[in-house]
């Protein structure tokens, strides 16, 4: 299939026509308690045909990939755009789809076919067995998810972008039970170890060592004390900071949310257009970057799905809000500065403003300096529960594993650690931020947003962080 040939065969009255072909193969393997639970492949392919007519974009997503199918899709999209243009929220011009040319390919060391399905299954079986460190471990799971995506975007104003992604996510989990107490431990939260990488992440010695630790910590939690209740210092590991950044910074800064597109679903935002350049979002230690250029981070790319070239930008610098998460459509609608984040989950959805890699830059404090500065507090790691309001204000998050910090030292393990706060004051209470040695990279395949709904991959990286005087509590 030649996408440029298909494009040149379209004869419709439109200011602009674009074709975005996506082919994505997802291999998903799960071993539970030493037995195969899933050996699945999902192969999706199709073309999103988009047109601009009378200032209104319309789309027709089709899996009919011949000339007749693509032309019919373009013709119907033109009819739909024309009919809807009387009611357009915003009249766009072709500047909403800048000309883009280029290629991108994920960096990786070991290709998918270096592991046969049997070899990968064997590794997951070993991992599953390694997780069962004692009879108290009642369930073990070893999960591998490998995604290969090809994307090709061409347009009537000359764009031609080819991007190829290889993405690997893995997780290992143990559930331990003793009487009525049940505790679960994973490898940093569900599929938090998600990267653009190759099969090199399945290094057997490394995987099995992690599994032994995960199993041991699940058992350790069975006899741990309940997390204490009260206002105290909170130290968050980078794998929980991932969720913290995602929910209380990323979604709040999406310009399409601020413009109200999401008000019927995910919600609005406490951030307003007038806040850019003025709002002190967090303490002076807070520096947030949008960076789709980091090698191996989960949501790196060269161009977004509207053709905007991706580059690193500071969204928040020294705590001050500077820039939002908005692609070219949002930038034109709002007049705000944005980033290249106009992304679709697949060929069958239109792009909207999404996070990509959204990171908290490291600071100067060492791990020891942070822990030793705490008189009484709790260290929490690995997200297990998340909920935040529709304005991205009132959140409550829970973690799998906690440690009490007393007089500058980690002491007892605590179970069911939770905390709740309000985004703006919480980030202003950021008291210490870890250095590069505490900085870790994570990602998730599961960011949901949009109507119709879309699940998309995002990456987050963060150092260890200390927050002051946070409401902390335990389980039921």
């Amino acid at each position, binding site marked *: 299939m030649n996408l440029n040939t298909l494009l040149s065969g379209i004869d419709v009255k439109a200011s602009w026509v674009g074709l975005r072909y996506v082919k994505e193969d997802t291999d998903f393997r799960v071993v539970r308690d030493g037995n195969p639970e899933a050996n699945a492949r999902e192969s999706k392919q*199709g073309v999103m045909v988009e047109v601009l007519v009378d200032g209104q974009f319309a*789309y027709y997503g089709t899996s009919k990939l011949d000339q007749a199918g693509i032309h019919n899709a373009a013709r119907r999209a033109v009819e739909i755009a024309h009919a809807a243009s009387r009611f357009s*929220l915003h009249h766009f011009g072709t500047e909403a789809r800048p000309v883009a040319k280029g290629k991108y390919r994920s960096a990786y060391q070991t290709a998918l076919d270096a592991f046969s399905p049997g070899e990968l299954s064997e590794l997951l079986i070993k991992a599953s067995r390694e997780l069962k460190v004692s009879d108290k471990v009642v369930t073990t799971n070893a999960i591998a998810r490998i995604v290969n995506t090809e994307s090709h975007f061409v347009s009537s104003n000359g764009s031609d972008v080819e991007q190829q992604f290889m993405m690997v996510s893995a997780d290992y989990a143990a559930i331990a039970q003793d009487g009525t107490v049940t505790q679960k431990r994973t490898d940093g939260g569900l599929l938090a170890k998600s990267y653009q990488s190759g099969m090199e992440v399945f290094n057997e010695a490394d995987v099995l060592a992690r599994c032994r630790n995960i199993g041991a910590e699940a058992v350790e939690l069975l006899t741990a004390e309940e997390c204490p209740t009260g206002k105290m210092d909170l130290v968050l590991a980078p794998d929980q900071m991932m969720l913290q950044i995602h929910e209380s910074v990323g979604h709040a800064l999406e310009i399409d949310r601020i413009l109200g597109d999401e008000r019927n679903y995910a919600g609005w935002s406490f951030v307003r257009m007038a806040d850019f350049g003025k709002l002190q979002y967090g303490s002076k230690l807070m520096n947030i970057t949008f960076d789709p250029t980091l090698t191996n981070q989960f949501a790196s790319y060269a161009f977004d799905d509207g053709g905007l070239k991706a580059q690193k930008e500071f969204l928040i610098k020294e705590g001050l809000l500077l820039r939002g998460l908005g692609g070219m459509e949002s930038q034109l609608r709002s007049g705000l500065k944005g980033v290249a984040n106009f992304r679709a989950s697949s060929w069958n959805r239109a792009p909207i403003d999404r996070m990509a890699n959204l990171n908290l830059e490291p600071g100067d404090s060492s791990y020891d300096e942070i822990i030793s500065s705490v008189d009484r507090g709790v260290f929490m790691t690995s997200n297990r529960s998340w909920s935040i309001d529709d304005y991205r204000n*009132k959140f409550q998050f829970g973690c799998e594993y906690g440690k009490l910090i007393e007089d500058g030292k980690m002491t007892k393990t605590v179970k069911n650690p939770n905390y709740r706060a309000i985004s703006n004051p919480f980030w202003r209470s950021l008291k210490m931020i870890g250095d590069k040695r505490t900085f870790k990279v994570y990602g998730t395949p599961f960011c949901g947003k949009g*109507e119709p709904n879309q699940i998309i991959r995002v990456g987050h990286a963060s150092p260890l962080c200390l927050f002051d005087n946070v409401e902390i509590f335990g389980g039921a």
Partner: protein
Amino acid sequence: MEKLFKQISQTILGSLRSDEHLGLSFGGEQSTFVRINAAKVRQIGKIDEADLGFNFIFKGKRSTSSVSLSGILDEDIRRAKEELQRLRVEIVQLPDDPYLVIPDSTETSMSEKSGNIPSADEISNLILPPMGDVDLTGIWASGTVFRGSANSAGGYHWFASDSFSLDYSLITPEEKMVKATFAGTDWDQVAFEAFLADSIKKLELMSLPPIVIKPGNYRTYIASAGVADVLSMFSWGGISEAAIRQGESSLGRMRNEGVKLSSLFSLSEDFSSGFTPRFNGNGEVAPETTLLIDRGMLNQTLVSTRTAKEYGVETNFASEGESLRAPQMKVGSLDESEVLKELGTGVYLSNLHYLNWSDRIGGRITGMTRYACFWVENGQIVAPIENMRFDDSIYNFLGENLEAVNSQAFVNPDVGTYDGRELSAVVCPGILLKSFALTL
């Protein structure tokens, strides 16, 4: 579409070799979506897609897959043959699966429900002018959804359904909101305009100055839409037999410790409405009704045939994920017209938002109040409340704190579209609680 699926399935099933077993599933939709902001068109378009799923079994091993279909018969048969060949190469490399289930259902069914749905070109002109000056944001979704199943034992099912939904929020200048969904199978312009006018009238209530209430325990009424959100949590580490067995269920305490919910609470899986097909992804047909929680006691869980084989229990032909497909909660005796009077002084919650287990094993759910939520005094609405976070256990608010259940059940259609347009709906009444924990 049915012809396409039938021809592909006959070709592929007819090409199987001895010792090979195969279940094929079909999922597709021809949908129109209109995304609306400020009663204007933000995004609009159509999606035409279909996938063919494979559940392939050979000599004690299992591999599954799905491929996109083009709708062009020759091309799709080529894709399906290629995929079967790939599965044959892969499956011999896989470990044995002790709990695989060879498809043996020979049942057949056929259900096609056609409706009267406006075309993509007509929709904007039908739905936007009646909105007038009101600030409305939402999503229109319409068209046909297809499901099919065929297997090497001879089972065959087909389900196709036309439908539309307009799921929307109305918003005041003070950013107070009302939520509603207008859904059906046959478009009725008069009925739509009346429904919309009723929503706009409700929005007027939201123009009262909002009040802030403090964290604490309050008498609370949760309307049907909010209850539907709570019941949806039972699909996520709740009513699944596998989840209970594997230590991942909030209802484990009911099985393992004999804990009961209120005798006022009963929950069934009930397919009698016909919103969603009774056959699952493996072509197995669930009973029309399965009583799951009977007057507060765990009567049955959702059991897939795979789980049944692993744990030696009886299947009720749940889906492999053992999630609710047709939940229906039993009504009580609280008349809708008496709700405010019986609430007396407390909070009225029309909708909840962003629910998650804060302690799954303990049955504790956190989430937010959203949309039309009010402070009520002596049976009278006083003012909307600023949104509050709640964090409470089902063993409290569906247990001893459940005071009454509404006598009328409402249909809450699932308008989700992550994996394509959903077909199901939660049918449930509102609930009156003696106490509900609002925390932030």
